[in-house]
C-alpha cells in the first residue's frame, strides 16, 4: 500500500560541481591526431599477427594480445555501414555546444581499414535519402580551425 499525500514535501539538492579533465592522448593517438591536424591524413594501425587495420590506433591488438607498430594511411573515402537520425540534441563534448536535431550519425568504414569511424553525416536527415552501402568522403575543417582532436573532421560528405 502506498500512501501519498499532496502536501508532503521532498527536498532535492542540486550539485553542479564539474569535474575537469585533460586527457593525455598517449603515443599512438598523438601521432594520429598530428597527422589529422597537420596533413589531413587518417592513419590506422595494423596488427602484426591477424593483420587487421584498426582505428583508432592503439598499442595492443585485443584479439592477438601483441603490440602494434605498423602505421597504415587510410583513404579519405569509405562506405556507410550504419546510421541513425537523431531527434534529440546531443552535446558535443569538445565544443560544449549541442547539435541541433534532426541530424545524422553514421559509421563509415574508410577504404583500407577494418573498422568504421563514427561521425556526423552532411546529408538531409531523411530515411529515404540515406542507405547503408552509400559512399562518403571525409570533410576536414580548414587548417586554421584544426586543433588536434576528432572535431578536425567536420563530417562525412556523400559522394555523388
Amino acid at each position, binding site marked *: 500500500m502506498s500512501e501519498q499525500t499532496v502536501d508532503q514535501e521532498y527536498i532535492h539538492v542540486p*550539485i553542479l*560541481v564539474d*569535474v575537469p579533465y585533460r*586527457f*593525455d592522448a*598517449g*603515443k599512438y593517438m598523438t601521432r594520429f591526431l598530428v597527422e589529422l591536424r597537420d596533413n589531413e591524413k587518417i592513419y590506422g594501425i595494423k596488427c602484426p599477427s591477424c593483420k587487421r587495420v584498426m582505428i583508432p590506433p592503439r598499442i595492443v591488438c585485443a584479439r592477438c*594480445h601483441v603490440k602494434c607498430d605498423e602505421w597504415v594511411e587510410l583513404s579519405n573515402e569509405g562506405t556507410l555501414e550504419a546510421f541513425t537520425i537523431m531527434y534529440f540534441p546531443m552535446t558535443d563534448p569538445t565544443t560544449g555546444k549541442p547539435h541541433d536535431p534532426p541530424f545524422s550519425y553514421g559509421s563509415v568504414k574508410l577504404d583500407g581499414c577494418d573498422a568504421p569511424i563514427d561521425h556526423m553525416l552532411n546529408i538531409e536527415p531523411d530515411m529515404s535519402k540515406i542507405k547503408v552501402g552509400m559512399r562518403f568522403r571525409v570533410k576536414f575543417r580548414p587548417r586554421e580551425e584544426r586543433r588536434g582532436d576528432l572535431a578536425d573532421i567536420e563530417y562525412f560528405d556523400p559522394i555523388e
Partner: protein
Amino acid sequence: MTDRVAIVAAAKTGFSPSRSDANYSELAYEVIEKVLTETGLTIGDDIDNSISCSHDIWDGQTISNIGITDVIGGHLRNEEKMAMDGSTAVYYGTIAILSGEYNLTLLLAHTKMSQTNRNIVNNDAFEPIFSRKLGLDYTSAGALQATRYMHVHGIQRDQVAKVAVKNLGNASRNETAHNFGFYSVEDIIESPVLATPITQKEMAPDTDGAVAMILASEKAAKKITKNPVWVNGIGSSYDAHYLGDRDLAMSRALEQAAGRAYAMAGIKNPVKDVDVFEVGEEFAHQELMWYEGLGLCEAGKGGELIDSGRTLFEGDIPVNPSGGLLGGVPANVAGLHSVAEAFLQLRGEAGRRQVKDAGVAVVQGQSGHCGQHHCVVVLGRD
C-alpha cells in the same frame, strides 16, 4: 582445488607527477608486458583471469576498466574491475584462485592523478546531501582525523612529522619514487600548511603510474619460478561512511582486517613474527594510527613507536622501506605497489632498500576518507 596462492611476478612503471607521454592503456601495457615477458606466460594460453583496479572519476570514464580490456587480456574473456585500494585486487585474485575456478590471474592497477583535480574527485566520495556541499575532501577530513587522534592520545606534532622524515628519506632508495629527500622535523612542519596540522610534505603527492602482478595457484607457481612469494593471510573490513559515526582516533576496521589476516597466516605477535611492513599512509599521521591498528604497539602509542626508531629502515620493525605513499604512488595503485614492494623484499630483490633476511611481510592498504576500508595481506617466503 588449490591450497595456496603465490605471487610469481610484479612490475611497476616509473612514478611521476605527470606521465603525459602515455595514456591509460600505454601505461598499463608497460607493466603487463614486463610481467608476461619475465614469466614467459601469455594471455591466450596461460592467464585465465584478469582483475584491474581503477576509479571511474579519477579515470573520467564510466566503468573505468572498459577501455583497457585489450591490454589486460579481457577481450572475449573474463575481466573484473574493483575500485578500492590495489591491495584489495590481491584479496579478490587470491579468493578466485582458491575457489578452484582460476589458475593464473593478472592484476593491474592504474591511475593518472595528473588528469583531473584531486579535491573534486575526493569530494565526490562524500555523501551528497549532508557532507559533500561543505567541500570536504580526503585532505580536510584527514586533518580532522589527525587533530582528533593527536588530542585523544597526546600525540606530539614532531612525532607526526617524523613519519615524513623517515618515509621521504626511505623513498630516496626507491628508484620508482619521485618525492624524496633528507629533511629535518622542522623542514616538514614548516612546509606549506594544507589543512592544519597537515603540511604539504605530510601528504602523498599527485602521481601517475601503474603496477601489474601475476598470482598463481601453488601447482602453477612452482612451474613458473623457484622463488614464489606466498599469500598466507588476507583480511578486509569497512568502517562507517559518515565520519561522525566513527571514532576518528582509532581504526577499528584495520584491527578487524589485520586480525583476520594474522589468524589465517598464523601470526601471533606481529612485532616478532613479521620482518617488514608496507602501509598506506596518505597522510603522515595515518602511519602512526596504522601501527596501532596493525598491533605493532598499543592504542595511542604510535608516537612513542616512531620515537623509538624501531620502524626506521634500520630498525627491527621496518615500516615503509619503500618510502610508502609519501614517496609518490598513485591513488588506487597504492596497495598493489605496497604488495609489489613486499614481493621484492621477500625475493631479496629490493636493492638499496632491502631489509636483511626478510621472510614475512605485511601489507596494509586503505581506501575512502580517513581509511574507511582496510585490506591486510600477509606474505611469506614459505
